[in-house]
């Protein structure tokens, strides 16, 4: 741990706004925090709430970078706040804004849950197999190619944090644009041999301008995905596959 990060006073500029409170107006508020070694934004925000502002709203659950609760704009970029060290900011100034494109709950807290549920419903993000319910669970499971299982896992690593949606320029222009989180789900289920849907079925879901043909390929999703998912590759792949359906 280097010495120069001890003794710094950090300045947090945070958007404050509670839509539940009548007459409340969005505003930026600055809080000062003494930096500690290994300090994350998770630790700093809890300290701010406790010492300076008991009303400050933000969302953390696992605080280990795996649950996707704490996406926010950190100095302009969407990222997971829990695993962001304050030492990453040499000037000691950190601006925090709620993720755009989601309903604001208050301050830094946004409603990703409702968004992700409707995204799942839209792409029907579950295994479609009419035989599924009649599988005899006492019997040895159906075999799967080990490489295929690994490949599905790579796409299944999405934590639905919403960073891709917040970083998406197309989404800003088109309210109903599905976005990268939806495309990666489709790619995941399309790859899975247990899901019996055909390309025609997928076309129904993503074969239009609110789907994969609407993407302007600016790739904010690829640049800002905290899990480094292959968005660029999968969007291009889905497009090629969907073009063949038409």
């Amino acid at each position, binding site marked *: 741990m280097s010495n120069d990060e001890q003794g710094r006073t950090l300045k947090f500029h945070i958007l404050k706004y509670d839509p539940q409170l009548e007459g409340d107006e969005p505003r930026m508020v600055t809080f000062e925090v003494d930096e500690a070694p290994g300090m994350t934004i998770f630790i700093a925000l809890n300290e701010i709430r406790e010492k300076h502002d*008991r009303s400050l709203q933000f969302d953390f*659950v696992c605080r280990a970078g795996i649950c996707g*609760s704490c996406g926010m704009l950190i100095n302009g970029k969407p990222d997971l706040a829990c695993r962001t060290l304050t030492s990453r900011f040499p000037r000691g100034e950190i601006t925090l804004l709620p993720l755009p494109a989601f309903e604001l709950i208050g301050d830094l807290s946004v409603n990703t849950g409702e968004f992700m549920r409707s995204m799942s419903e839209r792409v029907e993000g579950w295994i479609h197999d009419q035989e599924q319910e009649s599988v005899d669970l006492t019997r040895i499971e159906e075999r799967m190619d080990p490489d295929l299982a690994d490949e599905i896992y790579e796409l299944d690593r999405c934590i639905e944090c919403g960073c891709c949606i917040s970083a998406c320029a197309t989404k800003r222009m088109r309210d109903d644009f599905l976005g990268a989180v939806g495309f990666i789900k489709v790619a995941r289920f399309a790859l899975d041999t247990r899901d019996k849907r055909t390309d025609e079925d997928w076309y129904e879901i993503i074969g239009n301008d609110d789907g994969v043909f609407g993407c302007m390929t600016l790739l904010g999703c690829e640049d800002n995905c905290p899990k480094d998912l292959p968005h660029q590759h999968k969007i291009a792949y889905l497009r090629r596959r969907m073009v063949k359906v038409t």
Partner: protein
Amino acid sequence: MKIIYTDSLIIGGGLAGLRVAIAARKRGYESIILSLIPAKRSHSAAAQGGMQASLAASVKSRGDNEDIHFADTVKGSDWGCDQKVVRMFAHTAPKAIRELATWGVPWSRVRAGDREVVINAERVTITEGEDAHGLITSRDFGGTKKWRTCYTADGTGHTMLYAMDNKAIELDIPVHERKEAIALIHEGNRCLGAVVRDLINGELIAYVARATTMATGGYGRLYSVTTNAVISEGIGTAIALETGIAPLSNMEAIQFHPTAIVPVGILTTEGCRGDGGLLKDVDGHRFMPDYEPGKKELASRDVVSRRMTEHIRKGKGVPSRYGDHLWLDITLLGKAHIDKNLREVKEICEYFLGIDPSKDFIPVRPTQHYSMGGIRTKPTGESIGLHGLFAAGEASCWDMHGFNRLGGNSVAETVVAGMIVGEYVADYCEANSLDFKTSTIESFVNRERKKIDDLIARSSGEEVYELKKSMQAIMMEKVGIFRNGDGLAQAVEELQALLKRSRNIAIQNKVRSSNPELVEAIRVPKMLKLALCAAVGARDRTESRGAHSREDFPARNDREWLKRTLSTWKDEADELPTQEYVDLDIMEMEMPPGSRGYGNDETIHHADTAVREKQIEELKKSMPNADRHEMQEAIMPYVLPEKYRGKNERVGVGYE
């Protein structure tokens, strides 16, 4: 007053809660899940290592079956578990894995042929069978005779939770997010649902249901340092306790893990030490060989945690702003090994500590990890005191873990209990209509509203954050890894004082809608009650069993303590729980108490143990032609829902 009716109300949207909801929904009962957060963000996602089930496909797991899984789990529990429940669990676990495979979990699969693995720090080549190619594989874990832990790379809990929630979405099961149950509603000893606070607008809503299931996870956040998510505060368990008639059980049984990073308490895998990593102190000295010359860093989890604590107490910890810690040194393993085999650890070190573990030591400390105790249930999952209240997963004391849980058995419990308890919840919905007086619902909602009104109205009083911190420090220091009579007596006294003070909390932020300080003020008095159950339980249990380790009573004492602790909170004005004890009947056990096989066995045995051993021996002799299933049935019959009774097929041995 807003009232929402349903058949099956589930509080908690993790693996256990989702699976119970799915079971009831499939049987035709409307289910609503309440969750503090979106279901996919639940703490179930944090399980990385895997889920135990005796599928026996990998070459190192061949020969495994329910009997061996049962025996490992009972030993691991230090004979503190309910053996019939362990049987129910071990028999259903393979079905749970296979069900999740059809629902989309991309379980890692067996690849036929040679592969290199590390066993006892040496590189060994093992050969997987052609007949198992493409079946679900498994890895080695602590305390198991076979490689039984099925996994999805290093994201097992995540993929299980996603598959489960996706299934719930397919079945159109509503998840009411950002809702907190703050009290259970009951008429006499019949549970009718819960009073729920909307965390966004602050509204109080009565959810009224035929059956209510608590699946709210553990109570790790009673401690200042825990691997648990920030929502694991035990509130579901606490509101069951506050009914005065739903007992909690074994609240003193709390597991610690040796190597979580400091300060945030995120786990680094035991694999660091398995691969050759060392523990070092403030002087850079490798201290484990001083204490455990035989197994050194690779002594069992509870032993290592105890030794580390002892060493810190001697003043050999590394001081930091966040308290003393020790070092985990994996630099000797080299960059190539770390990049390839300890990728998660490397990422955790980079993101949370800003260090490179191939060059820098990792600051670690033993950390609270799992709550074996919880809402005491029958094998059906129903509370022993409150009809219509069920519990599943870590929130429950079902009780398959006794005083120590095996790695890989926690996510396994969530889905298996979800399947089994879910069936009994559906049975309950079938057999019981909803019959209640509206005035009952009203009186509970009014009671909770008044508490909140009082909190907001109080102009001066106690600081909630201060009370919480004090509680967490007391639990960490005095109800931790090592416990002793004096410390525990002090802990009880101090927690009691905090509980009294918590009745006079005053908050600064007076807003009724979304208000994090108000949330704390509602929760902290409840958490203090749980803390007192754990502290009193630990103080009074004058033996050491599993994770409950008494310096002044180091031996397991079956003669006096082969008992389950029950805690109730009879009256809101009480300052202590009412404790009772229930014997675990050796004469009903399939596996009478023996040695776990660590260190010298100093167990003080119960007289029934020898009697039961002899009885079982004679029974076995009298049935020379019985197969293992028939024999098990004769020794300790147990009940399972019809649909899960079938024998499990395995490669090479069929249904044997």
